[in-house]
């Protein structure tokens, strides 16, 4: 769920339920690496409640570019070679999604 999105579309706070540091720290790190992001941080309002707030502020004008997420479905990086012992079959899961998971044409009515 997104807060504060409509007035200013360069910044938003995303509140994710049933999540904790596991995904929030990883998302925060990756977002910080993006040059279009000016600020990214996360907080857990109360440790007993599984909710995490991720705040992102961007330079503005960043369009949600769906093509970046191609690696989830289509161009799976098959060529990642595992060095060392070679008795593992590392078949990267192709996630089995035929339609794009970022459903542009379908609006979720809350």
């Amino acid at each position, binding site marked *: 769920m997104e807060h504060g999105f409509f007035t200013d579309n360069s910044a938003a706070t995303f509140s994710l339920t049933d999540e904790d540091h*596991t995904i929030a720290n990883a*998302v925060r*790190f990756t977002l910080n*690496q993006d*040059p279009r992001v000016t600020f990214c941080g996360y907080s857990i309002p109360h440790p007993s409640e599984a909710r995490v707030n991720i705040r992102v502020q961007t330079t503005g004008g960043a369009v949600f570019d769906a093509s*970046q997420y191609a690696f989830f479905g289509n161009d799976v990086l098959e060529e990642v070679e*595992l060095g*060392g012992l070679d008795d*593992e079959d590392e078949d990267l899961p192709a996630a089995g999604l035929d339609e794009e998971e970022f459903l542009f044409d379908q609006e979720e009515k809350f």
Partner: protein
Amino acid sequence: MAEGAGEEKKKFSIWDLPDVPVGQLPPHLELQRSRVSCNKDAPIHTESIQYSGAYASMGIDNSSRLDRFSNNFRVEVVRLNEDDMEFDMIGIDAAIANSFRRILIAELPTMAIEKVLIANNTSIIQDEVLAHRLGLVPIRVDPRLFDYLSENDQPNEKNTVVFKLHVQCKRGSPRITVKSDALKWLPNGSELVKETRNATSDSSSKPETYTYFGCSQETIPEFVKNPIIPKYPDIIIAKLGPGQEIELEAHAVKGIGKTHAKWSPVATAWYRMLPEVVLLEDIEDDLAEELKSKCPVNVFDIEDLGKGRRRATVARPRACTLCRECIRGDDWEKRVALRRVKDHFIFTIESTGALPPEVLFTEAVKILEDKCERVITELS
């Protein structure tokens, strides 16, 4: 005194100096960015510089893109046994490594005993203590073959594994120890009969038990040759004196470590950063001997330079446990530098036996992917 105003001004640009690398960070900043310096009192530069504009004034782009990441990222397996595995992940950051560690410990599903139906327990181990101990016994079964059992579901062959434990110590015989190999798998489901209100009707049909198995679990191809048993047959569950008896049925269901630690598939999983031990100056002869003897894990070695002179070298930096013995004492901090490489992680996974460790890690990666997909679908 003759210099000063009379001197001809030499035009030079600081960028022409040969030892300022252009397009790259100068060595001291590169050290700060990529290494944790472990000094005598505390480590410094521990945070990872992830802000993309961190070195913008130098003209260096600290952002990371997927193509650069996929080019630099490597996984190298060092050791792989049936139950534990050690591998290196090079090119990721602590945040992602920690996510994998957290998922391995808390969010990978396993099967563990949850409900214990006790028919008879005359031992000195209380019912609840016995049930608690049974829950912690690791079971050798692939949890991916089962579904979760929620409150509204009935226990059937797709979400429950049933074990039976019936031991008795007869009067006159010595005390016996009940070990986990006494747990017998019941592939046809529960054998304890439920008491039905109307006992008169349908006495011809099969009596109702606590599980509703449609077919025997033995028919599932994975279990034909591998019966479901506890992974370790010698775990002590209880001890019985003469005349005591335990008769119970245990139902195992699928769960994750977040709910209860018995569902954690790893004994533990941990990572450490690759240690880097650097000799800042040449250490020779007596000092070299002293250095070699100081290190409890033999990181250093002596090499002969000929003419009776010896020099210390770093032979096994990977074994360094950061005990800091080599920098204790006067002046040693100037000679030896202990560092850690920030993006090289040595992961160790010890599995409890349900799944082999390499499968555990690939499942953890899948779970992280699923979490990300869930976030993306919610946002769009």
